[in-house]
């Protein structure tokens, strides 16, 4: 069995015994800067813009719903089961499907929809990043298969950056099988270092902060 052989080889190489104790690792480096809610929101939106996404702000949930309606135009969309989307009236917009809990049905809808609409558990102000945890409210495919992604997020969920995220969530595995950080539209520069957006994931991303 390779397992025991490999672990044996590792221990022999390091001069360690099975079950031998380990000193504490260097303390994790977590530095959380002071930042007001206002700075976080404006930094997030500016970063999203800089990544060739669209960062927008709505004062109320009703206004957010209206802005999503405008952004969609005539495009078909699939919305996640995040309660905030319903509160904004987004799930009731024409052409928007939501409330899907079946994997196969969801995948088919995502493969044909023109826009995927989600919330996000958190966003990171200093990098323009959405943090999405897989759950009954948020499926993985909605932010991945359609060519465009709209994320609606309450202003209070905007964190300063990675350090704050990993201090709030030191171990995401306890609550989800998948935590994905999304920073801008899907891109490649594989050929001649020329930037192309929307290779496999959405080439268009809009982040709408409420509050």
């Amino acid at each position, binding site marked *: 069995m390779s397992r025991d052989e490999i672990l044996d080889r590792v221990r022999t190489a390091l001069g360690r015994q099975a079950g031998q104790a380990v000193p504490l690792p260097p303390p994790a480096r977590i530095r959380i800067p002071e930042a007001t809610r206002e700075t976080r929101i404006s930094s997030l939106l500016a970063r999203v813009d800089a990544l060739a996404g669209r960062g927008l702000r709505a004062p109320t949930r009703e206004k957010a719903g209206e802005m999503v309606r405008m952004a969609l135009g005539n495009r078909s969309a699939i919305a996640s089961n995040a309660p905030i989307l319903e509160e904004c009236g987004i799930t009731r917009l024409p052409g928007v499907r939501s409330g899907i809990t*079946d994997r196969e049905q969801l995948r088919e809808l995502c493969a044909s929809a023109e826009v995927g609409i989600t919330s996000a558990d958190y966003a990171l102000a200093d*990098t323009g990043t959405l943090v999405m945890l897989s759950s009954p409210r948020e499926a993985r495919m909605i932010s991945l298969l359609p060519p465009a992604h709209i994320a609606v997020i309450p202003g209070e969920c905007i964190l300063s950056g990675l350090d704050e995220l990993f201090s709030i969530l030191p171990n995401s595995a306890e609550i989800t099988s998948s935590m994905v950080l999304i920073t801008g539209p899907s891109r490649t520069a594989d050929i001649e270092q020329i930037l192309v957006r929307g290779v496999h994931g959405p080439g268009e991303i809009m982040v709408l902060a409420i509050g």
Partner: protein
Amino acid sequence: MSGEFDHTTHATLDDARLQLAIYTSTGRLKDARANVVAADALPDYQELRSQANAVKQHAIDHLDYYLEQFERSVESHGGHVAYASDAAEVADFVLSLAKTCGAGLIVKSKSMTTEEIDLNERLEHHGLESVETDFGEYILQLAHERPYHIVAPALHKTRYDVARILEQALQIPNETVIEKQAAIARRALREKFLAADIGISGANFLVADSGAVVVVENEGNARLSTSAPKIHIAIAGIEKVIPRAQDLATFLKLLARSATGQPLSVYTSILSGPRRKGEIDGPDEFHVVLLDNGRTKLLADAPKRQSLYCIRCGACLNTCPVYRKIGGHSYPWVYSGPIGAILTPQFMGVAKEPALPFASSLCGACAEVCPVKIDIPKVLLDLRQEVRASEAAQNHNRLERMAFRIFGWLVRHPRAYEMTAADSGFDGRWRQRPLDREGSRSAECRAGARLVESARSAAAVVP
């Protein structure tokens, strides 16, 4: 360095178009990195490097402990961990899993570890279709080539090369617009993602305390590979384990900045186990294969153990004056540039790859940009010493054998023996004459030195 690689090196140096492609692409990556780690953009960059180095050192020095912890964490979330000693064991694992679930189609995201073990070829040999889904890797798979660079695999290809490859492989004539080429790949691969039975990824990090596999990418193909098929297999070297998820706050700030000059890559997936109860999508099975493939050999050598800290960002390639001239295919194995020059001889044995430690001018640029502070020039010097020692041992044996042959002949020919002894004042004891300095340099050392020299002289003619 064997004749084949000498040949590739010279062909690369003589190809003006290729020289320009390497120079431009590595230059862009190098400048992008410099901008985002500059003091005004990332004031605590040096502290982050020191922290990353300290955490890697701790993890590697206690690797057995963290591997076992990782294993327990993965299993606590319903995933499975398998260990593999070599390429054949990984292929056997995937093949038996594929057989059990009747799988025929595999989608793969980019992984240097699977390149190391020629996984696609092994799986295809057994009738499975294994498709690379990263745009650059997809093009290379169609062209039957190995990656040219750790993070930019198709760095040597121009849009015209891609047009030819697409025409030959997919009968799409004369498409030279890069956006359209990418759209062709997107369409072709979308079908594969939705039909695939198994998705294979590598791992940038394995997190011991959470059992998470972390995959960093820009295109979304790794998200699709790890989330669309019902089975996800992550294949990772044993050295990828880090103690805590909180350490990601350090490593993620360094990885993308060093690799492509982005503060974060577009997608960072932190994956822990199959989909949970209530989650709508995600794989039903989650497997992690931990690969040795020679890593435990490197581990035994304390001063060079730091070679295993590498997070595969490719920054040392972009800054290396030798890589920027001779390109990725001049190196004999999948790892190129300065990190390849220290990894390959240690994986293959210095006697087999004696030229690589000399393919460097020891300018130190690689150590300066390394986000985990691997002292590459120091490891190169240690390896040079080992090459010398192994050659001295070989020379010594050769001389000794020759001496005994001559002596044997002489004792069978008494007249010659007497004449030789009288002429030379031979007193019946053999002494080894010390070689002069130049004479003691092996052909391989000279090949390495020539390579650096030709890189230097060619550097003068590039814009």
